[in-house]
């Protein structure tokens, strides 16, 4: 690992704004906060994945992945970050390194040529060049190539140095933030600054979630100046240093960016969430308070309170029709972070019962909140193996599972309604209006008449009752030439149809079948077919099987 990268990683791990880090001893802190990955039992993406996820929502930038095909080819265009403008961010650009490139060391040249072609074809405001394991291993100097290309093609080429093997997705997020701090933030000045300019960090505008919140900001006269990286333009990242406050949405992944914005440019930051009604109101309040502290007119606070009161009344009124449809239903929550607490309290308010929640990634502080909301620790669980979850759902201990895509099929195969609340979801659930969308999704999922049908018995689960005798099949199978069963078939079959000791009961012939066994007729009859309690002999010779 290059020394620069090594020190960068040590730097992001030693995060003074992170509570967990601060509480560690000096020695623990040196080790960093990356948990060692367990071979054979690891899940989740690599550092490159994390860097790409954090930056890809910058919509007008060309994202060029310097790698053999897998890194981009297997992962492009798989997330629902929405754009109100350019669609360039969805295009998969990669250098597609071949064996020859690697063996002969052509990587740097290929990257430079790729940059020339890309800039000529697309004329993007900037190109982000992602380093990956292979070029890092063979020593491609991506920094140097980017410097040369920036100069040669008059377009910023930004190296994103987060090869997969250095660590987890979370670390990749942080390294991406460092790249922005080093190369992008502060490079462009806005035409005009206002006291109502904010940064939003850590939101990805999945399915348009940012736009569910933006009307609230529009009404308060608050401008999203900087964004990392929801529906962001390159210039919005470059201008981040001129905002008055930074809101860190949901995740601590990019806390290094927020802290360094404060250190370098004196922009205060706060953590907030737009999931759930109370959290949305709280985030707006905090945002306005800091803006006023930073010099905005104090009447902003009044307008903010008025807006919150109006919107909260509206959302509860909108939710009311769903109350009879969701009240009393049991929800099992299985998400990683702490972002859903506010959602939980809203669901409880609507009469739903949250029967359990995972705390696998939660901090002690988060766990405290669980106890506060749920009343006890009884509903908390750590990881749940898919097998256990399947069993829990199958026993109908819950009416719906809210989780990420990984447990989707555990729920579905247990014939259990499932609502996606993770990043891959296709519906936005942010802000006040998002809460209504979420409850609507829960209603639509739980109350689909399909579930009852799917859980019902198959036709063959019930024993046949009528008593009649059918004659034996006539004629030979057209495929194998085997003669049909020669015994008649009774309509009163034993249950279970094909168990018990072989050949125990004699074949009783009833009705008008041919009583003489045809040679070879037993050849295609399984041993168990001729036995049973009531002389039932099921024929195996239908045209499907023979």
């Amino acid at each position, binding site marked *: 690992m290059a020394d620069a990268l090594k020190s960068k990683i040590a730097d992001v791990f030693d995060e003074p704004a992170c509570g967990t880090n601060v509480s560690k001893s000096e020695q623990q802190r040196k080790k960093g906060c990356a948990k060692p990955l367990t071979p054979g039992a690891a899940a989740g993406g690599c550092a490159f994945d994390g860097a790409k996820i954090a930056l890809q929502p910058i919509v*007008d930038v060309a994202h060029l992945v310097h790698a053999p095909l897998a890194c981009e080819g297997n992962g492009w265009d798989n997330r629902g970050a929405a754009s109100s403008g350019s669609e360039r961010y969805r295009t998969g650009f990669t250098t597609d390194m071949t064996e020859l490139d690697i063996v002969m060391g052509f990587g740097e040249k290929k990257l430079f040529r790729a940059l020339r072609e890309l800039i000529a074809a697309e004329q993007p405001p900037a190109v982000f060049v992602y380093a990956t394991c292979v070029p890092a291993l063979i020593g491609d100097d991506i920094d140097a190539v980017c410097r040369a290309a920036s100069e040669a093609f008059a377009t910023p080429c930004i190296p994103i140095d987060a090869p997969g093997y250095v660590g987890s997705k979370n670390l990749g997020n942080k390294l991406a933030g460092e790249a922005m701090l080093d190369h992008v933030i502060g490079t462009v000045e806005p035409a005009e600054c206002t006291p109502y300019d904010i940064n939003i960090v850590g939101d990805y505008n999945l399915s348009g979630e940012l*736009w569910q919140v933006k009307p609230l900001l529009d009404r308060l006269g608050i401008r999203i100046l900087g964004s990392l990286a929801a529906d962001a*333009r390159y210039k919005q990242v470059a201008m981040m240093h001129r905002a008055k406050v930074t809101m860190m949405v949901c995740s601590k992944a990019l806390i290094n960016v927020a802290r360094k914005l404060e250190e370098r440019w004196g922009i205060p930051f706060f953590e907030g969430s737009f999931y759930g009604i109370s959290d949305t109101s709280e985030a707006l309040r905090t945002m306005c308070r800091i803006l006023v502290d930073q010099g905005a007119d104090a009447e902003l606070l009044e307008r903010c309170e008025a807006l919150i009161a109006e919107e909260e009344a509206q959302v509860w009124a909108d939710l009311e029709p769903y109350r009879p449809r969701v009240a009393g239903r049991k929800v099992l929550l299985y998400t990683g972070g702490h972002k859903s607490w506010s959602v939980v309290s809203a669901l409880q308010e609507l009469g739903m019962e949250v029967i359990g929640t995972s705390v696998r990634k939660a901090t002690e502080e988060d766990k405290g909140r669980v106890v506060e909301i749920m009343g006890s620790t009884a509903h908390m669980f750590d990881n749940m193996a898919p097998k256990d979850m399947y069993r829990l759902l199958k026993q109908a201990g819950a009416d719906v599972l809210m989780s990420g895509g990984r447990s989707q099929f555990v729920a579905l195969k247990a014939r259990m309604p499932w609502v996606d609340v993770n990043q891959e979801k296709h519906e*936005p659930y942010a802000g006040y209006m998002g809460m209504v969308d979420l409850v609507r999704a829960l209603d639509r999922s739980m109350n689909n008449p399909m579930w009852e*049908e799917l859980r019902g018995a*198959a*036709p*063959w689960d*019930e024993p046949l009752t009528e008593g009649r005798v059918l004659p034996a099949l006539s004629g030979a199978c057209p495929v194998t030439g085997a003669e049909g069963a020669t015994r008649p078939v009774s309509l009163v*079959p034993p249950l279970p149809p094909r168990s018990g000791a072989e050949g125990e009961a004699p074949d009783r012939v009833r009705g008008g079948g041919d009583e003489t066994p045809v040679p070879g007729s037993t050849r295609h009859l399984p041993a168990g077919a001729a036995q049973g309690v009531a002389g039932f002999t099921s024929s195996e010779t239908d045209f499907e099987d023979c």
Partner: protein
Amino acid sequence: MAKLVHPKRALSTNPLKSSAPLGAALAYLGIEKSIPLFHGSQGCTAFAMVHLVRHFKEAVPLQTTAMNEVSTILGGAEQIEEAIENLRRKSAPKIIGIASTALTETRGEDVPGELKEIVARRTDFDDTKIVYASTPDFDGAMQDGWARAVTAIVETLVPRVTERDPDLRQVTLLCGSHLTPAEIEELVRMIRAFGLTPVVLPDISTSLDGHVSDDWTGTSLGGTPLDRIAAAARSAFSLAVGESMRDAARALEERAMVPYRVFQSVTGLKPVDAFVRTLMGLSGVQDPPPSVKRDRARLIDAALDAHFHTGGLRVAIGADPDLMFSLSTALTSMGAEIVTAVTTSQHTPLIERMPCDEVILGDLGDFERSAKEQGAQILLTHSHGRHAEHRLHVPLVRVGFPVFDRIGAQDACRVGYRGSRAFLYEIANTVQSIHHRARPEDFGAAPIAEEFEHVPHATRH
């Protein structure tokens, strides 16, 4: 549940229904070596034939008694006799299926009486069976014409029996007009899987399935052989698929004491379960073949994958009652909502059972208007719905008759576990094909400031 609405208007815009004689002709084409004959003017036949050809992409034998002014006034018995004679000479059909039209019905011709007289007098016609169904264009739709023709076939060709001598391994499958050749084939496959032999009536799966035969004939290219129709008298049971087949099933019961069961739908999990359960009972098979069980398990998985797209889906459907009912119930059982239902015929108890508030007895004009008002997200009707598709910007799934702007309509299968699975995929994929990208204005958010947008500059190359 639903009530029937007759729109208060004189003008019909963009017809939804096809005529009853066309349905009768199609049913006759499901009999081996048959020629349908319209008792009416030439145009009645020409329009119907073009309609059939456009849908099936096959040469369709369809003849006319070519009523002229004189015969229209004086009576068309001679025209019928001459038509039969000419058809026999030219194509030697084993059966001629006659369907009346609005022209001859308005005139009030006593065709059954005349036919009786002709057949009694012309003993040389003995080796051609003649079936007649009264199918005035002004009453009912394609489905009704088909149903009357099938009843007429049963009443003419199935012998009356006084003592029951059932072949317990044989069942009669009475196919409604909404079944495509592939769907008939699928039902036959399921019946055979239980060791039963079906008499399929009528069987367009062997005549209009779109195949190249070794020889050219002027009659239908396949279909139920006449002796098999007679053999239906010995069937253990009649499986009537489609409510419109109830009359034919009753006729069979009345003539040959064959008990029956009507399956109003064989699309969707529960309806197919009922069909399979009946087959289990008939065959005495408690443990169905693995293929049937696997197909059910697959349908359940398909339902799980599809319900994300069908849940809350607002559907507009326009079709003959049998088809409308079976597809609508399959969709509502998946959480969809029927916001517009337009049908062609009131001669059915299914309208009351439709899972919606009202069913319009109307045309595609009503269909389009209602779909727009109700904010339908998907349209299900025949090819003529494409105009509504374009105007409303809502995708169209082509179902029913005619489908003339897509090939392979005869291969669409939406029945049985397999067909239901394909139907769910079809609907879910159509929903997904609507490429909707979220926009700020969808949520009432202001667009981003222009200042932030990148203005491309010419590079130095």
